[in-house]
């Protein structure tokens, strides 16, 4: 496999293809007629996913640096580069994204009934943004992709969403924009900081070389952290998420939960820790992040437990899960960060699947209120099986991907912050407290509603969508080591940097 990839110079083109392929697909979709748009989009994304699998073999295990990197000046006058590359952290984000895309698009076939062409075009545009975010090695490029994901999502929620779609879309947009624009100011500060003598640069590696005083680091940390915390979303910046999820159409929810939220935590790892190593281990900063992460875990679980709307419930569980990621990261231990990363992957798959299943239920019954269901296991055993496995993966049952992530994240946190970890561990109780009642209300109890009696089970397409996700949940749960070993060198490198880079001297004035 490796030699085959070498023969076709895989490393040199793969990232560019993954970034721009969806854009090309978008043009293709726009040129074709409405009827075929879904198939075209699916075909493209599936092909891109298959190609992206080559990354698994092409990636050199044990190399902490950026691989398959390339850099071309983009806006030379500003020192902006079109620079792409991946390390162990982005590798899995890229794979997860390209895995989710065809699934989300396939999941839209019945849900999206009007303006399909535009919908699929936007989904593909979104995909370009997503892959761009995870591969960009230039801050301006990153920012462009980061914002680029907002617009398609705004329209996906706003055009194809539910009753309060506009409110949700605007809330999502503005919330996220506040953070990201402040981050932009931070980025420009970094740019100015690299300027020193001569022109500044937005290149990731150049900015790593900039020396910042503690004071500067704290301010910049705040600017970046706000942007990413809103994206994560970290309590108390989370209220956009339930609204967005409830209103978004299924594929939108899937991508939102599976990928977009990860951009926040990815940003923590990719930018916050390496850029501001001193601020990242400042006790006040660490305390705030840990407290907010833990609060999110417990609080979101509580709120989730009393939601009558299943989608809202799952949305809140996302907040709880991402809380695990955040505490894992800010524990500043290898185990914690690795755990956080696995939670990211696992949450992407399991929550994506949950949203797909809820979407399937919605297609059948046009409601998401759990009280409207009940006893579905009798009429839809396949759906029941999928929902149960997914729910279990979501609450972190050992043997599923969720457990590996949460276990490692908590273990890593415990090493440095035992009390936080113990409080966060109570999240496993609350996870059962919110998820099982939902499963019960939907699948179990009496099949007492006439409408539900005629509900069809999963179609072949739906089985095709869900089975790879379910399989992955279990595979990752049983054998996560291949993933862990690919991520570890990069994580080590980040931690190494955090622990060994002192802040620059405070400037005399200011």
């Amino acid at each position, binding site marked *: 496999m490796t030699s085959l990839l070498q023969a076709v110079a895989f490393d040199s083109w793969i990232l560019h293809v993954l970034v721009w392929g969806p854009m090309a697909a978008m043009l293709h979709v726009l040129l074709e007629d409405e009827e075929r748009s879904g198939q075209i989009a699916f075909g493209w994304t599936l092909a891109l996913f298959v190609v992206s699998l080559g990354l698994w073999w092409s990636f050199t295990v044990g190399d902490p640096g950026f691989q398959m990197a390339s850099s071309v000046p*983009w*806006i*030379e*006058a*500003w020192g902006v580069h079109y620079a792409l590359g991946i390390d162990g952290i982005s590798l899995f984000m890229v794979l997860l994204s390209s895995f989710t895309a065809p699934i989300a698009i396939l999941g839209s076939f019945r849900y999206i009934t009007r*303006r399909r062409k535009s919908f699929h075009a936007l989904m593909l545009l979104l995909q370009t943004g997503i892959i761009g975010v995870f591969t960009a090695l230039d801050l*301006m490029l990153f*920012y*462009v*992709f980061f*914002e*680029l994901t*907002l*617009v398609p999502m*705004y*329209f996906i929620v*706003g*055009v194809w969403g539910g009753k309060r*779609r*506009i409110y949700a*879309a*605007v809330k999502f*947009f*503005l919330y996220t*924009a*506040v953070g990201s*624009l*402040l981050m*932009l*100011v931070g980025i*420009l*500060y970094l*740019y*100015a900081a690299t*300027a020193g003598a001569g022109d500044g640069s937005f290149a990731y590696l150049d900015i790593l070389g900039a020396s910042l005083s503690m004071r500067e680091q704290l301010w910049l940390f705040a600017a970046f952290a706000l942007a990413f915390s809103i994206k994560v979303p970290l309590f108390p910046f989370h209220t956009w998420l339930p609204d967005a999820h409830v209103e978004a159409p299924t594929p939108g929810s899937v991508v939102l939960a599976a990928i977009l939220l990860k951009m926040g935590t990815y940003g923590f790892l990719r930018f916050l820790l390496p850029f501001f190593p001193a601020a990242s281990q400042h006790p006040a900063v660490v305390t705030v992040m840990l407290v907010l992460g833990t609060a999110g875990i417990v609080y979101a679980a509580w709120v989730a437990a009393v939601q009558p709307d299943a989608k809202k419930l799952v949305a809140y569980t996302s907040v709880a899960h991402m809380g695990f990621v955040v505490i894992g990261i800010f524990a500043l231990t290898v185990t914690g960060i690795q755990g956080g990363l696995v939670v990211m992957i696992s949450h992407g798959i399991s929550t994506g699947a949950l949203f797909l299943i809820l979407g399937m239920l919605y297609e059948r019954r046009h409601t998401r209120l759990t009280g409207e269901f009940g006893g579905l296991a009798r009429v839809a055993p396949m759906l029941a099986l999928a929902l149960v496995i997914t729910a279990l993966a979501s609450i972190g049952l050992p043997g599923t991907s969720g457990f590996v992530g949460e276990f490692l994240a908590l273990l890593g946190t415990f090493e440095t912050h035992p009390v936080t970890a113990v409080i966060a561990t109570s999240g496993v109780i609350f996870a059962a407290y919110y998820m099982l009642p939902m499963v019960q209300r939907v699948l179990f109890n009496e099949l007492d509603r006439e409408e539900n009696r005629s509900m069809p089970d999963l179609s072949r397409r739906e089985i095709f969508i869900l089975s790879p996700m379910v399989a992955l949940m279990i595979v990752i749960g049983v054998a996560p080591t291949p993933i862990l070993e690919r991520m570890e060198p990069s994580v080590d490198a980040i931690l190494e940097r955090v622990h060994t880079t002192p802040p620059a001297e405070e400037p005399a004035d200011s």
Partner: protein
Amino acid sequence: MTLDFSTPAHYLLALLPEIVLSVWGMVVLLAGVWRGDGATSAPRAGSGNLAVLAMVGVLAAAFANGWLYGLTPGQGSPMIAVDRFHLFANWIFLLAAMLALAISPAYVRRQRLQEGEFHALVLFATVGMMLMGGTRDLIVIFLALEVMSISAYVLSGFNRRDPKSAESGLKYFLLGAFSTGFLLYGIALVYGATGSTNLGLIALAIGSDAAVGGLLHVGIALLAIGFAFKVSAIPFHMWTPDVYEGAPSPVTAFMSASVKAAAFVAFARVFLVGFGGIPESWYAIGWWLAALTMVIANVIALAQTNVKRLLAYSSIAHAGYLLVAIVALNQNATAGLLFYLLVYTAMNIGAFAVILCVSGHGEERLGLHRYAGLGARHPALAVCLTIFLLSLAGFPGTGGFMGKIFILQGAAEAGLWTLSVIFVLTTVVSYYYYLRIAWYMWMREGAGSDEPDPVTVPLTMRFAMGAAVAVVIGLGIFPGGGVSFARAGAEGLLTAGALLLGAAP
């Protein structure tokens, strides 16, 4: 060829684009008279050609402007500045004129306006703008400003049958003249304090402490007020929403883009070259004007339901962003100013073009609710408007984003962090009202088919929109050329100033 301003003929060369355009304007005026106008009799077939004729003039001026790149300006600080700054500004005005001419014919014909005069006035206003950008003398700046303004007063009141247009013209005229008084008083005081109206000499006088302090400071403040009125900075913005709403849409499009641009170009030249030596005298004024303008304009815009008025407030808000560039007082910011003005011209006129198409026969469809379901009915128009709105909002992938980045870079270089934060936060506020138009277009169902939908998009309009989209997207994705070009322009401005101050390398 080197320009030597001791030879009077060389002034003619230096002013070639302006002269071409002036002459052409008269030609258009005469052609209009000769052909007879729609105001009194039924429009004749093919009378749209007058607009095309005017556009040819703009093209000719553009050629002349391109030719000027081959000239090297001589030493000293002559009245006419043949520097890159001037030439870049000319491109902006010519682009604005071109787009305005392209979007207006259908409207002019529908409303049976005097074509020849209308198009000629556009050209004359453009001449005034080009002169504003191209002179180093306060007297000429005043003259050019008046040439531009008087044309603009007339244009905004041009639709005499429409009381709104007349009201708009009156308000613009009264307040414009009122503010001109302040500007003029400022010029007089600066002249008295420094002994010259030439910016170069003023700068020298300031640099050598020969200026009279009190007079100078008050003069600078009054000049700032005069320009603040023209760029519609808060609190000197009161005329803007009314005038923009009342004026015929093509005129609003033209004014909102290029009048503002001209004012900013002159503002920049006067303050950066002339008063660059004593920024402390106007830094605080600029800072507060920028901050107030950004905050208040964006906030008021939230409450608007008339799209035209909304864009008027949006244009005020943009004045705030651009003021940041002036306050930053460095090359990057100035280049950002030029770049942003270019993009702004394209996106703003583009947006007004769509509004014009939607607004119907006599501009009766300006309410936000008219846009409901537009995306389904006229997807191409809606896509264009969405692109323009995203660019106005400053979204990545559009020129508006690159422009904002450019200005923010300048601000960052100058250490204007508070202003930068206000800048981005008010940008978030602006997202709301820009997106609101977008959500009406795409996310709401139309009112139904009970009334006919008289949207027509003539050929020239398509051309204008296409060009505007091309500029906005092109500069959004590959801004490199534009950036270097704008930097060269800023360099032209600032090195000239620095040379005079004796502080250049």
